[in-house]
């Protein structure tokens, strides 16, 4: 009895503290403006619901499996969420009399109204409690649904809510009639939510059958008699690629915002591919990576803008294609120039030196001294756009094709390098540099090539970035860019190419689409990274499944879902 009480309070306190934190930083209030399901639930409420659910799951997870569905489970789970309700209720009560707003700017009357569901007095608090009890009960209900429906149902609900949250991404992809029916300007319609849940349940239910059939097809295709199947699969594959490639052109009218976001994601993928070579393959922790991005961007801008009279005196403005090789060459050379002095440093020292290098470049760009050349704090406008004959690449979706091609090249370079002798040398250096040298690896040239290739890709990303934005300013090149790229590698999985794409989508794409999160971006990043490190330290899409074996040794069987060869 006593242990159950302790568990209940512990889970409740953790959940309550998280809920307090989320409300007092203003996240709940900010997210409350988004209705995810019309007249039913807002994003802010969803967040609180998530806390309630999480609290109950945490509490139940500490109980032995067979006791979770007994009365004990109910008591612990519902008791824990009641503690959360109590904490939030006290907050709601305390805000006005204690004048909490004096300390916490976000402890506003609006927050009280959210917490008490617009109902004054005791009834409001009861509603809050009921809401959290409901959230906690969801965890219990899950335990009672027979397999495999428990998973199917919860995934379907989860995906549906995600579609509501990512409305800006999903809605433009559908024909107007359908999207008007399913979506409101901020989320899902009620009927839309129901329909989507049903569709997803059906889809998820039949998915394993479908996958099995696909696998048998694939197996049959391997056999000598499988030629026709093989041909059909190949055609299907080509068609899929073609459709994907045509998608931007088809969707261009609906989704200009979508393509702005995708362009940014793409530019980060290119940078990510580059940094992945430096950090993921060669294990050199480079925190000044933004420098090469800036060098690419500024070279492109300075060489092509009609402004900057001082520069124009000497060189006439170039077009995009003339400036691009110069931008690439300069970033490559600067990669080597940074590489030489830091060759002997490792780990944290390397990180600090490169961090400094990134700042130096940014300060040079802002400086008044170089203003005639680099445009100073105002930056440069009038950067050239790529042209093909008389066709000028102008729109976001048109840029997207160029970015896509660049990503393709980047992935090609990365795979070729990874599987080459140089790739093995990098891997060895990453593991143990001294021993790598003892194996006859020329670590000097291996490290310099890593820096140079990484810088080249960053420079390419920079050139595309400045051309795409038409104008650039120094503040776009701060250290946060380096940190973002590094984070996307960590989240995606160090050294993994699909991981770069997944990481960029998750860390760059999602926040752009979730405008409401914008001001909490770093907070969410931080939380996401901590959670990743605890539960999936090898990233969302690790380099190879067997890498996780070491992770498992270190982190115990929390990683039990991972495959090991």
């Amino acid at each position, binding site marked *: 009895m006593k242990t159950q009480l302790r568990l209940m309070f512990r889970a409740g306190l953790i959940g309550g503290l998280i809920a307090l934190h989320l409300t007092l930083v203003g996240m709940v209030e900010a997210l409350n403006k988004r209705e995810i399901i019309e007249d039913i639930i807002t994003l802010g409420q969803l967040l609180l619901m998530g806390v309630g659910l999480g609290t109950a799951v945490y509490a139940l997870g500490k109980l032995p499996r067979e006791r979770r569905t007994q009365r004990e489970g109910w008591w612990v789970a519902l008791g824990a969420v009641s503690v959360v309700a109590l904490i939030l209720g006290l907050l709601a009560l305390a805000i006005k009399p204690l004048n909490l707003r004096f300390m916490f700017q976000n402890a506003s009357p609006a927050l009280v109204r959210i917490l008490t569901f617009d109902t004054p007095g005791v009834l409001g608090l009861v509603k809050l409690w009921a809401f959290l009890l409901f959230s906690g009960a969801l965890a219990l209900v899950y335990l009672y649904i027979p397999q495999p429906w428990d998973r199917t149902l919860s995934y379907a609900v989860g995906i549906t809510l995600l579609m509501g949250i990512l409305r800006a991404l999903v809605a433009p992809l559908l024909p107007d009639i359908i999207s008007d029916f399913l979506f409101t300007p901020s989320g899902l319609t009620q009927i839309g939510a129901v329909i989507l849940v049903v569709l997803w349940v059906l889809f998820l239910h039949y998915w394993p059958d479908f996958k099995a059939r696909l696998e048998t097809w694939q197996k049959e295709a391997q056999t000598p008699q499988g030629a026709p199947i093989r041909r059909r699969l190949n055609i299907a594959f080509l068609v899929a690629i073609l459709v994907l490639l045509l998608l931007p052109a088809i969707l261009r009218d609906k989704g200009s915002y979508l393509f702005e976001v995708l362009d940014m994601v793409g530019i980060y993928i290119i940078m990510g591919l580059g940094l992945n070579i430096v950090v993921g393959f060669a294990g050199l922790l480079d925190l000044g990576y933004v420098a090469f991005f800036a060098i690419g961007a500024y070279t492109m801008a300075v060489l092509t803008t009609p402004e900057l009279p001082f520069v124009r005196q000497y060189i006439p403005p170039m077009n995009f294609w003339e400036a691009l090789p110069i931008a690439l060459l300069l970033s490559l050379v600067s990669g080597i120039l940074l590489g030489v002095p830091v060759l002997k440093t490792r780990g944290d020292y390397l990180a600090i030196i490169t961090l400094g290098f990134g700042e130096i470049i940014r300060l040079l760009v802002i400086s008044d001294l170089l203003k005639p050349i680099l445009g100073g704090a105002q930056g440069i406008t009038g950067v050239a756009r790529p042209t093909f004959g008389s066709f000028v690449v102008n729109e976001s979706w048109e840029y997207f094709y160029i970015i896509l091609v660049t990503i393709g090249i980047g992935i090609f370079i990365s795979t070729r390098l990874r599987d080459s002798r140089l790739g*093995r040398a990098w891997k060895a250096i990453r*593991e143990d540099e001294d021993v790598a*040298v003892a*194996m*006859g*690896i020329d*670590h000097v040239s291996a490290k310099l090539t890593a820096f140079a290739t990484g810088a080249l890709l960053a420079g390419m990303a920079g050139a595309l970035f400045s051309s795409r934005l038409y104008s650039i300013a120094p503040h776009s090149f701060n250290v946060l860019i380096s940190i973002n790229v590094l984070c996307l590698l960590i989240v995606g999985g160090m050294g993994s190419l699909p991981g770069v794409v997944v990481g960029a989508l998750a860390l760059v794409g999602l926040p752009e689409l979730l405008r409401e999160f914008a001001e909490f971006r770093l907070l969410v990043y931080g939380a996401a990274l901590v959670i990743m490190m605890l539960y999936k330290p090898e990233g969302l899409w690790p380099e190879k499944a*067997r890498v996780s074996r070491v992770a498992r*040794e270190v982190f115990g069987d929390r990683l039990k879902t991972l495959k090991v060869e």
Partner: protein
Amino acid sequence: MSHYFEIRDLHVHYGAIHALKGISLYVEEGEIVTLIGANGAGKTTTLRAISGLVRPTSGEIRFEGEDLLRYRPHEIVALKRIIHVPEGRRVFARMTVEENLYMGAFTRTDKDGIEEDLERVYALFPRLKERRRQLAGTLSGGEQQMLAIGRGLMGRPRLLIMDEPSMGLAPILVESIFDTIQEINRQGTTVLLVEQNAHMALSIAHRGYVLRTGEIVLHGTAEELRNNEMVQKTYLGMA
């Protein structure tokens, strides 16, 4: 007359620390020569100088009469096939056993020869063959030492320099490792072996040197050293 491998009057400084104070030694082709000495005597430093990992202040290192100081570390491996098995079982933890072994052949291009040597290593250490797909970081200490030696052999060394292969291993394993070193030597590899375990080292070596605080204080055949009173007292722990 010049020796197969030879060090003459070698000095190494680490900043103000004078780690090697003019040591000279030689190794003939086909020999096992051991360098024994207490902690901090300069044994590892000597090996690091040979493989080019530290720059000597003065002195000569010659292999088949040719000056090695002209070469960079990776060239000493690639061109001279002098291979260093570093101290402390440093394997590439997140690579499999087999990948580690292939890393040892990094500078080689003769595919057939590499496969041949892989089989030879597996014959010397059957344990490694059983665990070829296992991550090296998850091997036991003894297995890691076998892997480090095997990886060295994969470079087809003309001179194998080994730094304390017995460190931290149980006596029975030490014995089997030394048996293997002797077997490797019998198959034609010249070995320069650094050890603190003077007893074991002198039992398989042809000749030996005793290093004390950066100076060679004694050298002779293994037999002579085993019978030397000072060696017995200091390094063999006999009263």
